[in-house]
């Protein structure tokens, strides 16, 4: 009885630690990018300098994720490093399949992307919103869809953006000044 009680206590303790860690991690959404990156590194994610991280979607095996410098990861994006479908099979109660994820330098993830185990994303890529990435994405690629497919080279996207009719160089402005520029450009009183 004593042994069973101790085991139960240990389970409760472990679950409590998981909940605390999960809450702590969710609270990171409120922290600065630098604080988030420090927290990710503490958890084992190998992440380069100058990244912007808006998501908390890192896996239970954060040490299997490697992200290069100057990447932007929008909210809702999830990195998945395990295939847990083995849980279905009663005769394989302990089975999991894993795959590390490697992201190159200068990669932009739109909102709600999913990166599946074993994915390798090259340098200078754009992952369109909602894309589901699996396998290898070559350098200089813009990908979209499920499964994510190359739709153009990043160099072509750059030309489009540089010359876009709604291009407005506002990043250096404070919110009020930016609002003025946008209202004027779009004719909003």
């Amino acid at each position: 009885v004593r042994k069973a009680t101790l085991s139960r206590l240990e389970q409760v303790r472990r679950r409590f630690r998981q909940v605390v860690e999960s809450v702590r991690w969710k609270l990171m959404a409120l922290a600065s990018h630098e604080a988030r990156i420090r927290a990710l590194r503490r958890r084992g994610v190998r992440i380069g300098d100058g990244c912007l991280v808006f998501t908390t979607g890192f896996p239970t095996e954060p040490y299997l994720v490697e992200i290069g410098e100057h990447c932007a990861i929008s909210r809702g994006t999830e990195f998945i490093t395990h295939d847990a479908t083995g849980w279905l099979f009663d005769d394989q109660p302990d089975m999991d399949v894993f795959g590390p994820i490697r992201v190159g330098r200068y990669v932009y993830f739109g909102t709600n992307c999913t990166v599946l185990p074993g994915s390798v994303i090259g340098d200078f890529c754009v992952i369109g919103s909602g894309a589901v990435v699996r396998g290898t994405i070559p350098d200089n690629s813009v990908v979209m869809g499920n499964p994510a497919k190359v739709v153009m080279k990043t160099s072509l996207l750059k030309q489009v953006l540089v010359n876009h009719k709604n291009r407005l160089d506002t990043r250096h402005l404070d919110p009020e000044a930016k609002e003025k520029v946008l209202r004027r450009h779009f004719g909003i009183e």
Partner: protein
Amino acid sequence: LDIVGEIQTYVLSEFAAERDEIAADENLLGQGILDSMGILKLVAFLEERFDIQTDDDDLIPENFETIELMRAFVERKRSR
């Protein structure tokens, strides 16, 4: 219509309805006539209309800046 004419008609109807004509050597990217979704539509049009298959490495500015460059791209693809 030749290849240039067909692409001109498509670009005018889809991306520059306010204009009457568009020159084959006009820089469509430089003038902001094509945006990223526009390029996706244009690639789908070229593939279907001219029965070509674009590779990932084809999707670069050098093939889409002007209608003339698109014509050359289509002809290169067709000759393979």
